[in-house]
């Protein structure tokens, strides 16, 4: 027969299901909210940083700089407009600029963007080819891992592009794309893109027999890598008269996360409040146990239990509550993240599915269990001063 103190503590908690459930629910929600915020913050920041990867400036049509970044670096927002390839190339030739990667897009296949670019784009993100090869000729497509998986594309498959970035109504039925390669997963934005030569993008919008004017060719944006830090100050000046602008991904993302910051600070405060309530609830439940179970505790002293035995039993009840509550909280945050990830995936094709415990979560768990133990250790001291004779007389 197993009758250790942990077992007794567990049975005592089970004997008061409502009180236990309340303490557990409060702690689980508090820990869950903080943990979910840590997880999303970490993963969103990671995703943002991974995709910025040495892109110092983004050149595109005038408009909101944040929109320019979101559209061309992360492929979340709609682009600000088009710019002339020839104009963009002039900027790339500026002595302060080391290199540029052109992006031209405006079509999609089943919600996944078809991006006309050069091989340097895939190389920039270090994406390897899993099957087939990189795109060469117009209407050859190399697809990102997530696209291949979601649309079940294999080498040799063909598809049409649809006008717009999500619409499936205006389909270019006369131009057929062929899958010539599938990329390895890279945890970068490339995973959710269909890459093709820029020529495909230009050609897809030409009527039968029409020949495009090379000098009028447009692109959506140019991702720039600077050679000289002064580029950040100089380049915007050179564009003042044009319809183009440059935006700095690092600064725009920073500005955006600062705006989110207010909201997350409020959420964090609420989560902390819930956690504080849960500790108060543990405190009260241990205090209440000492009062309502004092006969039991006195009885245990007459059967060989020492004050230390009783103290440790009460401490374990608080400890067990904190441990289970924290565990439930961490589980809850993962369920939340999974739900959130599905939503984000549907809308933006981004995934937030990194479920491993973060170092900051270990600290959160240790703090929650520590404070939970403290919240039971203080009232449990009452058991050390229990007057057995007096208590047993009361009945």
């Amino acid at each position: 027969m197993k009758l250790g103190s942990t077992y007794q503590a567990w049975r005592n908690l089970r004997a008061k299901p409502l009180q236990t459930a309340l303490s557990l629910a409060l702690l689980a929600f508090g820990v869950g909210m903080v943990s979910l915020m840590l997880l999303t913050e970490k993963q969103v920041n990671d995703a943002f940083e991974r995709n910025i990867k040495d892109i110092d400036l983004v050149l595109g049509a005038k408009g909101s700089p944040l929109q320019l970044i979101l559209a061309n670096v992360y492929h979340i927002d709609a682009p600000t407009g088009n710019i002339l390839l020839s104009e963009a190339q002039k900027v790339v030739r500026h002595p302060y600029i080391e290199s540029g990667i052109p992006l031209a897009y405006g079509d999609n296949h089943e919600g996944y963007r078809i991006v006309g670019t050069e091989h340097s784009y895939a190389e920039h993100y270090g994406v390897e080819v899993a099957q087939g090869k990189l795109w060469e000729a117009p209407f050859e497509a190399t697809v990102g891992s997530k696209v291949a998986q979601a649309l079940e594309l294999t080498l040799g498959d063909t598809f049409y592009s649809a006008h717009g970035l999500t619409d499936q109504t205006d389909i270019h039925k006369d131009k057929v794309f062929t899958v010539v390669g599938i990329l390895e997963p890279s945890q970068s934005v490339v995973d959710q893109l269909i890459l093709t030569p820029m020529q495909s993008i230009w050609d897809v919008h030409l009527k039968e027999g029409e020949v495009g004017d090379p000098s009028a060719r447009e692109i959506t944006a140019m991702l720039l890598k600077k050679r000289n830090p002064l580029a950040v100050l100089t380049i915007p000046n050179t564009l003042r008269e044009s319809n183009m602008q440059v935006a700095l991904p690092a600064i725009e993302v920073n500005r955006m996360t600062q705006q989110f910051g207010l909201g997350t600070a409020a959420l964090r405060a609420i989560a902390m409040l819930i956690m504080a309530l849960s500790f108060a609830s543990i405190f009260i439940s241990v205090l209440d146990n000492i009062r309502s179970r004092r006969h039991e505790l006195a009885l245990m002293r007459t059967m060989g239990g020492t004050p230390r035995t009783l103290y440790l039993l009460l401490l374990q009840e608080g400890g067990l509550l904190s441990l289970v509550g924290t565990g439930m909280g961490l589980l809850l945050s993962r369920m939340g993240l999974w739900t959130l990830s599905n939503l984000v995936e549907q809308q933006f094709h981004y995934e937030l599915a990194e479920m491993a415990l973060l170092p900051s979560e270990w600290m959160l768990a240790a703090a929650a269990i520590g404070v939970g133990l403290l919240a039971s250790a203080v009232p449990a001291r009452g058991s050390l001063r229990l007057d057995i004779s007096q208590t047993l007389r009361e009945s």
Partner: protein
Amino acid sequence: MNVVLVVRSYVQWHIPPAYLRNMVNIQGVKFQYGTNGAAMAFPDFQCEPGGRMLLLGSSGTGKTTLLHLLCGMLRPTSGEVHVAGKHVASASDRDLDVWRGQSLGIVFQQAHFVHSLTVEENLALPHQLTHGHVPTDLPGRMDSMLERLDIAHRSHAFPHELSVGEQQRASIARALLHRPQVVFADEPTSALDDANAHAVMDLLDREAADAALVVVTHDQRIRDRYPNCVTLHRPAP
């Protein structure tokens, strides 16, 4: 001359003094609650191993106080209390806690239990608290004792699911299962009718056959049960 010396040293070293020969031995015990409470003086008495003793007295005579003094839950203001080889007045609290669990069996007037544990877990609790584990032979002994007390079918029930009589028998089983040297019973029959009162006393006598049994009661129905009887009187105002 040599023979006298040998006999004297044998007596000194091999025959223990009266307070160790007896399971319960109190001498000149006085007690007072706080500084303003009535001063209580208790008569001296002894109980041998396997002996039976009644402590009789109406309410207010300090029966429960004496019982708590004997169990080390209270300390006498003066006098000697020896129970099961322990000098209760001078032992440390921790010592007394362990000693109670090992050497004493206490049947309370009102049966107390740990409510979150089943009857059989409650019965095993003294072993767990004293030794840190439940001996492997305990479940067998427990089953046969519960069988004899006619509550074997209630072993998995929770204490609050038992009738008053069943609770009383379960608390007797708990007090005796670890084979204590001394059993104290506080008003074990006060809540029972005549037939059950005698049945419970028979049961205590039978199950605690090897232990010294001290019954504290005001119940006149059992006053003639044992020849050894100490009557307590109300302290002088």
